[in-house]
């Protein structure tokens, strides 16, 4: 039976919490701009995680108090941050040595589309006349050991973001390891997409109706 009503599933906060739960103690983590940033505040107590920001800081802390922002202490989203005790600064070539050299354990990114083979599109819709901007996204997916994507399951107009093949320009080929959406957590394996967990009220058949790519149980 196919349900017709829309199921909201997990909140953004709950999605970020699911990601945070899967980040192991001692991990070096790079969080993308936007929803991925929420993960930092939700890592379970007792785990020590070091945050990397590609503009040259390892040991990124919380946002500063109002009035204490330093324009020369920012994250990759150009927002004011703080540095934890034990933090260090470095230049861009060192920063991307950490990324491309596979020293960073986990990267959490947003997505426009993820394909069933792990292809990711998250930097451009390929729209004619748009100003292309890529930043560090292609380096992150090419170099970080584990890539988690956190995204709404569908677009604002209800289209599937988890697709057979990306129609938007790729950020990287076969790079995504796991997808966290408001409806489910899905592992990307060599043999396809496997549903690891579903949000309350979501059935496998409902999930498949919301997903362009083929899912496995």
């Amino acid at each position, binding site marked *: 039976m196919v349900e017709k009503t829309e199921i909201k599933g997990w909140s953004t906060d709950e999605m970020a919490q699911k990601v945070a739960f899967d980040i192991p103690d001692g991990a070096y983590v790079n969080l993308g701009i936007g929803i991925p940033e929420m993960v930092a505040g939700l890592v379970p107590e007792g785990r020590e995680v070091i945050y990397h*920001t*590609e*503009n*040259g*800081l390892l040991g990124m802390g919380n946002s500063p108090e109002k009035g204490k922002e*330093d*324009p*020369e*202490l*920012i994250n990759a989203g*150009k927002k004011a941050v703080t*540095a934890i005790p034990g933090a260090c*600064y*470095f*230049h*861009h*070539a060192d*920063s*991307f040595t950490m*990324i*491309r050299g596979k020293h960073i354990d986990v990267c959490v990114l947003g997505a426009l589309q993820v394909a069933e083979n792990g*292809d990711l599109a998250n930097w451009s819709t390929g729209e004619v*006349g748009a*100003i*292309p*901007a*890529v*930043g*560090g*996204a*292609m*380096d992150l997916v*090419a*170099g970080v050991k584990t890539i988690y994507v956190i995204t709404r399951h569908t677009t604002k107009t209800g289209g599937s973001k988890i697709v057979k093949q990306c129609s938007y*320009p*790729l*950020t*990287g*080929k076969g790079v995504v390891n796991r997808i966290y959406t408001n409806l489910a957590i899905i592992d990307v394996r060599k043999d396809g997409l496997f549903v690891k967990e579903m949000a309350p009220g979501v059935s496998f058949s409902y999930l498949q109706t919301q997903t362009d790519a083929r899912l496995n149980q």
Partner: protein
Amino acid sequence: MINKLVSSAKEAVSNIFDGATIMISGFGEAGSPIELIHALIDQGAKELTIVSNNTGSGEVGLAALIAHKRVKKMICSFPRTANSTVFPELYQKGEIELELVPQGTLAERIRAGGAGIPAFFTPTSVGTPLAQGKESREFDNTTYVMEKAIKADFAFVKAKAADRYGNLIYNKTARNFGPIMCTAAKRTIVQVQNFVELGDLDPECIVTPGIFVQRVVLVENPADESRLIAENRRYPW
């Protein structure tokens, strides 16, 4: 005697020529040498190729240089930022060229340029539109694309302190592209907030050795870009 300190930003940028390639440090406003860029606007060199991560904000610093039509081409990773309107408008009109480079590839191309390495292979951008037309090669069953080094005629860099040999230290995340750009330009011009005696900088903590620096300018109170933008300031004032 070696003394790389010059008396003004104006003097530091005096010999920049039309058609030059200039690397400009900074990630957003952090580390952007605004006073050197403003001196370059006054100096008048045009047809420039600029290598910088972004394209500037508002109408100060790099955005003001672009607004004055001095820049022929931008080589950068992220040409649009909050408050960046100058570059997008010229780009849409076809009045400025863009070479879009992934951020880590941009950093490594600069590093390679400074290190005397003409090209390298990277996994970044394989299978994406940014790898199109580039040579690729397999190593250990993985595909890599070849990227060429970038060198420049000049680099403009902002640092925290220098001595007369040109040894540098930086401030927090304003370091970003500064140290690698210093190495990749024929003439590196650095604006610093502090000029110190030889020996004041701990040799264990110097980030850029003075050999990579040709000129140092003291700018004790550099402009705060976001404040200038909030105040709707435009250069020249």
